[in-house]
């Protein structure tokens, strides 16, 4: 005879992904690495920002990049010119990186290099303002990018991304005069749901604001290093 039972789970739908993200973070902590997850819509300038960042800080901070791209290695190839390890992850049809994909990249980094040599792992997520906000990959902080050409309303339309961000870079500010955009309105819209996020307007083309972004990166690295990292056993 059949009997019906009920099991109360009360667990997050993304539990499996979350557990993987915690695992990745434990590895990063063990190696003394700070991990940042860079997210934006396609074409907001994540790769251009990374290029400027690697060019400016490569001597000072030991950086590796985990690069998510749906089908190509075009972005990874752009970044390899800066002589940093760039691990490309083709996500196939998936529109975001998940913790399992990043675990693959992370283990490859640890296999090919001594991971304790690195200070910073920059994860470039797939261009998308929706799902990456829900899928943690093991990062210590989330950095969102929004280009001025996307319009002031995007934080209102894709609120989860902007609510989750620890740092927001408003990119392509050199184009602002041509696209009739109100930077103050972007900031006000973000502030409606995220009063604490650090907001930095930048232009990879003119260099505007990059010094402020680098200063934020340095201070964030100092901050995470100062925190006592758990010496958890990870496998």
């Amino acid at each position, binding site marked *: 005879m059949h*009997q019906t039972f009920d099991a109360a789970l009360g667990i997050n739908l993304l*539990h499996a992904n979350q557990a993987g993200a915690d695992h990745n973070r434990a590895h990063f902590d063990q190696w003394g690495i700070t991990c940042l997850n860079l997210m934006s819509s396609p074409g907001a300038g994540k790769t251009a920002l990374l290029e400027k960042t690697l060019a400016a800080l490569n001597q000072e901070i030991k950086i590796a990049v985990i690069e998510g791209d749906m089908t190509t290695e075009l972005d990874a190839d752009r970044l390899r010119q800066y002589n940093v390890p760039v691990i490309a992850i083709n996500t196939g049809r998936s529109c975001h990186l998940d913790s399992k994909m990043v675990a693959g990249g992370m283990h490859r980094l640890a296999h090919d290099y001594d991971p304790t040599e690195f200070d910073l792992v920059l994860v470039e997520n797939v261009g998308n303002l929706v799902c990456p906000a829900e899928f943690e990959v093991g990062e210590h902080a989330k950095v969102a990018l929004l280009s001025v050409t996307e319009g002031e309303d995007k934080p209102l339309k894709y609120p989860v991304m902007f609510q989750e961000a620890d740092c927001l870079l408003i990119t392509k500010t050199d184009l602002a005069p041509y696209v009739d955009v109100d930077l103050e309105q972007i900031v006000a819209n973000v502030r409606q*749901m995220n009063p604490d996020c650090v907001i930095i307007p930048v232009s990879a083309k003119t260099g505007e604001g990059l010094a402020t972004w680098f200063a934020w990166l340095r201070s964030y690295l100092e901050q995470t290093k100062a925190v006592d990292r758990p010496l958890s056993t990870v496998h």
Partner: protein
Amino acid sequence: MHETDMTKALILTVKDWWETQPDRPQISQVYLTVGQFTCVEPVSLQFAFEVQTRNTFLAGAELVIQETPLIAFCHQCQQDYRPEIGIQYACPDCRSPMEDIRSGRELKIERIAYATEEASISQ
């Protein structure tokens, strides 16, 4: 379509539970709570679930989704309010930012209903 990936994540989580069950029961319903302030669209989730569970341990299982509204608490006004998604998130009375979300971020598997083969009781 990102609900496909969400569904994949959901199936993985349910599978983790199912594999810990000694008798691998037949699951009849999966009950979810999905908040309105998440990146998940319930209709798409239903569709993806139906397609992706075919010929798996979840074949024939029904996905029951309970939606929860976005409710925030304004510390300034000491009251709950309902932000208008896509339009206005700050408190309508004092314009304080939405800081304390009380409901709407849920993405939870509440419970699983399943049937199990029971040996008939001998007289």
